[in-house]
């Protein structure tokens, strides 16, 4: 009887593993395409206990604000989020991020469009913590028209909208290289080995077409472009890494909370399973089945 029980256990575990296995192989099978595999940014938020590096998020915000935000919106992020728990400017002294003076000051630096509550005319005013990050373009058509037809995508959830998001963003931003000889590049396009695409139709060189694709965005980062408040040297690699971490945070702001909750839930479930198994053994004791 004992043997049989062990068997059924093994079976159930085997089937769980098998199920997880199918799932694991079935979904990511289609990722990369012809792009180069992203480099590992060595981020602090990797792994089941990984958390955001607050200094890195602050640097990343600066890069986003000074470089990216002139073309890319973040429609789902509000200034108050900067002071949220585990966010770039989280301060335990201000459980309500709307009271956080740093966040208030950062909001105030930015102008947002509004309607005058008395005259109904449109006006520009200082942002408050309750405001969203303003979009640089009034609408998608304007965004496309101002960028040669390719509207810069919203970055709010970009790290989840690409496979291996944070590493991908980091690799893409710091990975621009001179196009290989024999690659026909249309005006307004740039070659990036981490961009997905198929370059075969544009390849006149020897051997198979190079990995990568065309991207409308030219390289944006140059060494020393941003002056970091914490004295970190603003290399292209550093800035790409920091802004990738920042976008990971905007994409999944509850990640740390999620992992911490998960730890508690799993401990509880394991104990619950142990107690229930003991109860099960007691109830079935001496019962042939």
């Amino acid at each position, binding site marked *: 009887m004992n043997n049989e029980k062990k068997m059924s256990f093994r079976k159930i575990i085997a089937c769980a593993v098998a199920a997880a296995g199918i799932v694991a192989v079935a979904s990511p099978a289609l990722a990369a395409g012809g792009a180069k595999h992203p480099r590992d940014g060595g981020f602090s938020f990797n792994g089941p206990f990984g958390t955001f590096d607050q200094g890195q998020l602050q640097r990343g915000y600066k890069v986003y604000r000074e470089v990216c935000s002139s073309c890319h919106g973040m429609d789902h992020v509000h200034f*108050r989020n900067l002071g949220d728990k585990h966010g770039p400017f989280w301060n335990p002294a201000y459980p309500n991020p709307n009271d956080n003076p740093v966040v208030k000051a950062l909001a105030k630096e930015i102008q947002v469009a509004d309607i005058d*509550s*008395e005259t109904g005319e449109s006006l520009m005013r200082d942002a408050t913590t*309750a405001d969203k990050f303003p979009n640089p373009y009034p609408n998608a058509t304007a965004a496309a028209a101002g960028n040669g037809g390719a509207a810069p995508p919203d970055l709010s959830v970009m790290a989840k909208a690409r496979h291996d998001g944070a590493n991908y963003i980091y690799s893409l931003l710091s990975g621009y290289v001179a196009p290989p000889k024999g690659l026909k590049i249309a005006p307004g396009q740039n070659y990036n080995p981490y961009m997905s695409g198929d370059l075969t139709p544009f390849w006149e060189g020897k051997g198979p077409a190079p990995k990568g694709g065309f991207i409308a965005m030219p390289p944006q980062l140059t060494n020393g472009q941003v002056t970091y408040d914490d004295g970190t040297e603003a290399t292209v690699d550093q800035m790409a890494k920091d802004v990738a971490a920042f976008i990971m945070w905007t994409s999944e702001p509850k990640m740390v909370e999620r992992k911490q909750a998960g730890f508690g839930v799993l401990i509880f479930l394991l104990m*619950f399973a142990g107690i*229930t198994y003991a*109860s099960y053994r*007691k*109830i079935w004791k001496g019962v042939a089945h």
Partner: protein
Amino acid sequence: MAEPVVNPDGPMGQNEGGDATRRDFIHIAAGAAAAGAGVMVAWPLINQMSPAADTLALASIEFDMSKVQEGQQVVIKWQGKPVFVRYRTPAELQKVEAEGAVGSPAQTDAERTKAGHEKYLVVIGSCTHLGCVPTFNAGEYGGWFCPCHGSHYDASGRIRKGPAPLNLIVPAYEYLSDTRVKIG
């Protein structure tokens, strides 16, 4: 044939007499863990209905008092509720100040306005009875009259007659300049 059909002690060990407590412990623990799991599951399902972060962050609003004419009120919307901004005439002001502390709770007019800006009254325009919007310049006390259940407020927004239990609520606000207020 002697088949070991069921646990001779009964499935829960309950047939074994005096030893039952110790034997039952594991089942009680399992039941308690299940109950605990139920509570842990219930909490997020209940808590999700609390105001969301964007609702809590609703901005305060600013208002230019010079837009209100003497003897008139302007109604503005703040956090989804109407706010009355009333510019009282000298006669109204004299009357509410002379009455001293009345209403519920008993308050003087000075307690309901800001020093130096006594002529302006700012109250949330929602009857403290059941939340209707009182009508301006109506009722027996020359303030507001609530059409729903007949509550009379004076020009200081204090409840004087009718079912409403409290004076009209004065929201938190401050003067940013001589004429500009920030509500909230």
